C-alpha cells in the first residue's frame, strides 16, 4: 500500500529471492496506476497477509534472523505495516530478532519430562562446547528425553534424539550436525500388534510411499465417503459418538453438522497439528508414521462439510513430520486424491501446510486462525464460534490430528460398529503418551475404559519397580494424581467425575525420588512463558503464580501465598479469554492439594 511508511533498510539478495519465490504465483501487493480507490488495493493486501508467517520462516531460514531489511522488504511486497509485522515476528520463539552469533541454534527441551533426564546438564555441556543454546518448552519427544531441535541457517532443521531416556549427549548432537540426517523418532512399542486402529500402519508401512499406503487400505475410506455423500458421512461420524481428542472432547459429528449447515461460503477445514501440550507426542507419531492417513482424513472432513480448502497447521518444532506431510500432500495430488476432481468426482479440495513458529497458544483454535491469517497468535473472544466465524471470518471446522484419523476407521467399520468399542459415550480407542519413569515410554493405543494402572503396566510399569509419587494426567493443562487413582477407568465420564481430565492423553509418571516442587514450578513457568499477553488475568496472573511457586521451591513462601494461588486460579478461570488462562492453574493447584510441595513447606 502506497500510503504505508516503510523503513529504508534493504534486504540481502538472498532474502529478496526467498520472498520473491514465495510470491511468485500471486505477485506483490502494489497498487496499480488505474487503481485510485483503496478498495481493490485493500483486497489484495488481505489476500497476501496470510503469507506473512511463511515469509518470516523464509527470512529466518535464509539469514538466521528476522533482519530489518528482510522484514521491510516483506512488508513492502505484502502491504503490511512494519510495526505490525514486527509485532507478529516477535510473537514466536523460533524467530530471532538479533543478528545470529552462530549458524545453528540448539533448542534443548528442559520441560517437565526432559528435566528428569539430564536436560540441564546437556544444556551446560553444549554451551561448554561452544554451541548457541536456548532452553525450550516441551518439544514433543518426551519418550526419548532430553530432546533437541537444531534450528539452522540456510539448511533444514534437525532433531536429535537418543536411543532411550537419559542418553543424549553433546557428542550425539555433534554427530547429528555432521551427518545432517533427520532421525525418525516414532516410538510405538505396540507396533504391528493385532487390534490397533490409529496406529495400525505406524512403523509398519513406509510413510513416504503412497503405494505402500494404498496396499494397507489407503484411500478406501475416502472412496467410500465419495460414494455415500457428505450427509451420510456426518451421520456415520455422529453415530460413532466420536469426540475431539485435542483435550476438549467436543462431539465431532455436531461440529461438522453445524458447519455443513452454514449458508456462508467459502468454508474451511483446519487440522490443528500444533501439538504443544507438555508431555504430548501422539499427533507427531501419526504424522511421522502415517502421514497419508491424516491427508485422507482431512479430505473426507472437507468433503463432508463442503470445504474446498484445507489448512494443516503444524507445530514448527516437527521437521520430520513437516517433510513427510509435504511429501504426502504432493503424492496425493499426483495420484488424484487432492486438487480438482478428486478420484474422478466433482469434488475439489486442496491442503495448505502452515508451519507454526514456537507458540503453545497457537494450538488454541482462534489463535491458530489469527496465526494463519498473518496476525499475532492471540485468541479471539468467543462467541462467535469457529463454526460461523472461523478462519478469515468464514465458517470453519477445526479438528485435532487424532480426531480426524479416527474418521477413517469409522467409515471402514461403520459408525455403529465403531461405537461398540470403548464405553458409553467414550467410544473408540485413545492414544496415550507414556513418559517419565515408565519402562517403555512411547505412544500406546487403548480402547476407552482401560484403567490407569493397565495403561502404565502395558508400558512395562515403573522403572526399577519404584513407588509412584505422582502422575501428570492430561498434560500441563491437566492435573496431578497419585496412585489412589490407578483404578480409574480412562473414560471421559469417569475422569470428569473424578475431577481430572484425559486432556491430550498425557500419562507422565514420577517416582518417589523425583523433585516434584521443581516440576510444578516448571509447569508454572511454562504458562508464564506461553501466555500470549493479551488479557490481564493470564498475562500477569501466570507471572504471579510462577513467583509463588518459586518462593515455595526456595522454601520462603509468604503466609498468604496459598490463598493467593487459589484466588489467582479462580480469576484466571473466570476472567481469562481462552483455555490457556482457564487451565493454567489446574496442575499447580492439584499438586498443592495432593501435598506434592510438602518437602519444602
Amino acid at each position, binding site marked *: 500500500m502506497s500510503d504505508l511508511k516503510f523503513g529504508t533498510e534493504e534486504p540481502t539478495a538472498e532474502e529478496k529471492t526467498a520472498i520473491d519465490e514465495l510470491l511468485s504465483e500471486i505477485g506483490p501487493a502494489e497498487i496499480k496506476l488505474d487503481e485510485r480507490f483503496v478498495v481493490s488495493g485493500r483486497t489484495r493486501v488481505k489476500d497476501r497477509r496470510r503469507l506473512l508467517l511463511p515469509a518470516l520462516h523464509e527470512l529466518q531460514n535464509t539469514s538466521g534472523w528476522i533482519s530489518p531489511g528482510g522484514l521491510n522488504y516483506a512488508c513492502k511486497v505484502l502491504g503490511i505495516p*512494519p510495526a505490525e509485522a514486527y509485532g507478529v515476528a516477535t510473537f514466536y520463539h523460533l524467530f530471532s530478532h538479533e543478528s545470529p552469533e552462530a549458524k545453528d541454534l540448539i533448542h534443548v527441551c528442559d520441560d517437565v519430562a526432559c528435566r528428569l533426564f539430564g536436560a540441564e546438564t546437556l544444556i551446560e555441556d553444549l554451551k561448554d562446547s561452544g554451541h548457541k543454546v536456548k532452553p525450550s518448552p516441551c518439544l514433543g519427544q518426551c519418550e526419548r528425553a532430553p530432546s533437541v531441535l537444531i534450528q539452522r541457517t540456510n539448511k533444514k532443521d534437525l532433531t536429535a534424539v537418543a536411543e532411550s531416556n537419559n542418553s543424549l549427549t553433546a557428542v550425539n548432537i555433534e554427530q547429528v550436525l555432521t551427518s545432517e540426517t533427520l532421525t525418525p523418532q516414532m516410538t510405538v512399542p505396540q507396533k504391528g500388534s493385532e487390534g490397533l486402529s490409529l496406529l495400525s500402519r505406524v512403523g509398519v508401512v513406509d510413510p513416504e510411499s503412497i503405494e505402500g499406503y494404498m496396499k494397507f487400505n489407503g484411500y478406501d475410506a475416502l472412496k467410500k465417503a465419495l460414494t455415500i455423500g457428505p450427509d451420510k458421512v456426518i451421520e456415520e461420524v455422529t453415530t460413532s459418538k466420536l469426540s475431539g481428542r485435542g483435550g476438549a472432547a467436543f462431539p465431532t459429528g455436531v461440529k461438522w453438522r453445524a458447519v455443513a449447515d452454514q449458508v456462508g461460503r467459502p468454508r474451511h477445514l483446519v487440522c490443528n497439528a500444533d501439538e504443544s501440550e507438555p508431555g504430548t507426542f501422539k499427533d507427531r507419531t501419526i504424522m511421522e508414521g502415517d502421514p497419508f492417513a491424516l491427508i485422507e482424513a482431512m479430505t473426507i472432513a472437507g468433503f463432508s462439510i463442503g470445504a474446498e480448502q484445507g489448512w494443516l497447521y503444524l507445530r514448527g518444532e516437527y521437521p520430520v513430520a513437516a517433510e513427510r506431510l509435504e511429501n504426502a500432500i504432493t503424492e496425493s495430488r499426483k495420484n488424484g486424491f487432492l486438487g480438482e476432481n478428486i478420484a474422478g468426482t466433482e469434488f475439489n479440495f486442496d491442503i495448505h501446510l502452515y508451519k507454526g513458529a514456537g507458540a503453545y497458544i497457537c494450538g488454541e483454535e482462534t489463535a491458530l486462525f489469527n496465526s494463519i491469517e498473518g496476525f499475532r497468535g492471540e485468541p479471539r473472544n468467543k462467541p462467535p464460534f469457529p463454526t460461523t466465524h472461523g478462519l478469515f471470518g468464514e465458517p470453519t471446522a477445526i479438528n485435532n490430528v487424532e480426531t480426524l484419523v479416527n474418521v477413517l476407521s469409522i467409515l471402514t467399520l461403520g459408525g455403529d460398529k465403531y461405537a461398540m468399542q470403548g464405553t458409553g459415550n467414550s467410544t473408540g480407542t485413545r492414544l496415550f503418551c507414556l513418559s517419565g519413569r515408565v519402562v517403555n515410554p512411547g505412544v500406546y493405543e487403548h480402547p476407552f475404559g482401560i484403567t490407569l494402572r493397565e495403561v502404565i503396566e502395558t508400558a512395562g510399569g515403573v522403572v526399577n519397580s519404584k513407588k509412584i509419587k505422582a502422575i501428570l494426567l492430561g498434560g500441563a493443562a491437566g492435573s496431578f494424581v497419585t496412585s489412589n487413582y490407578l483404578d480409574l477407568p480412562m473414560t471421559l465420564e469417569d475422569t470428569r467425575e473424578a475431577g481430572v481430565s484425559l486432556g491430550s492423553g498425557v500419562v507422565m509418571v514420577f517416582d518417589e525420588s523425583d523433585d516434584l516442587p521443581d516440576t510444578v514450578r516448571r509447569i508454572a513457568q511454562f504458562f*508464564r512463558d506461553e501466555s500470549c499477553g493479551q488479557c*490481564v488475568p493470564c*498475562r500477569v496472573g501466570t507471572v504471579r503464580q510462577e513467583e509463588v511457586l518459586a518462593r515455595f521451591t526456595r522454601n520462603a513462601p509468604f503466609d498468604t501465598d496459598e490463598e493467593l494461588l487459589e484466588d489467582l486460579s479462580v480469576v484466571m478461570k473466570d*476472567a481469562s479469554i481462552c483455555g490457556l488462562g482457564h487451565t493454567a492453574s489446574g496442575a499447580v493447584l492439584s499438586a498443592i492439594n495432593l501435598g506434592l510441595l510438602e518437602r519444602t513447606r
Partner: protein
Amino acid sequence: MNEIPVGAPRSQIEVQIDGKQVKAVEGATILNICQKEGIDTPTLCWAENLTPVNVCRVCVVEVEGSRTLVPSCSRPAEDGMVISTDSDRVRKSRKLVFELLDSSVDMDRSTTEVKEWMEHYEVDSSRMGSKNEIATVAQPPKIQDSLYVRDYERCILCYKCVEACGEDAQYTFAIATAGRGFDAHISTEFDVSLPDSACVYCGNCIGVCPTGALVFKTEHDMREEGTWDEETQEVTTTVCSFCGVGCNLELHVQDEKIVKVTSPADHSVTSGHLCIKGRFGWQHVQS
C-alpha cells in the same frame, strides 16, 4: 446515486440485569445496557470511539448458564439473558484484575474514573510482594521529540493506542503490540524512535490512554516539576481554525497557558480524534 441498503429491522429483546427486567435493542452489548441503566461498570480497554478488544477484563459480568464470566463490553445481549453485574464472583474478578495491574504497572497517573474504580474495589496488591521483588514493567520513559512522552511503566496494554493509530482512527499503523506474554509491549518496528517510524504525531494515542503512559511533553514536564495542577485548569471549548473541517477543540489552560488539547469523544466531527495541527499547533496563541 448509490442506493443506501436498509438493514434488516432490529427486534427488541428483554434481559434481566441485577434482578430488573429491561428492554434493549438487538445487538446492544451488555455494557450498553449497563450504561443505559446507570450501572457503573469499570472499563480500561473499552472506549466509545474504538472497537472493543475485550482484553482488560475489568468489565466482566456473570451471565446465567455461562461457565466463565463474560466481558460486557463486547458481548451482545441476548433475549432472556440473566445478568449479574455485582455478584461476589464479579467483584472478586474485577478486584484481582485491578490488583494484578497495580502490582505490575504504575497506576498513579490514571484517569480519575480509573482511580475511583480502584478505590471502589478496595484494590490492594501488597500480598503479591514488594515491587522490587516481583516482575513489573518498570523502565525509563521514552522521550524522543518535543511533543510526546511514552512512559511505558504506566502501560497496562489496553491496546487503545494501537487501535487509534490503526483502523479505528488514523490508519497510520506506527505502533503495534510486540513480544509475548508479560514481555508484550507497545512498539514501533524494531523499536525505532518515533520520528523514524510511521508516526504522524496526531496525538490520538495520547487522547485514548487511560493511565498516563502516553502524555503531552508539556504535561510530562510539568508533572516532573510538580507544577501540574488539574484542579486549577480551565477547559475552553472552541473550533480548530486550521482548516474547514470544523473539529471541536478543548483547550486545557493552566496559569493562562495552554497545557493540553483534547476533543470530546462524542463529537460528531472528530469522535475525539484530531490531527497534529489541532492537537499541537497552539504555540502561536501564547507567543
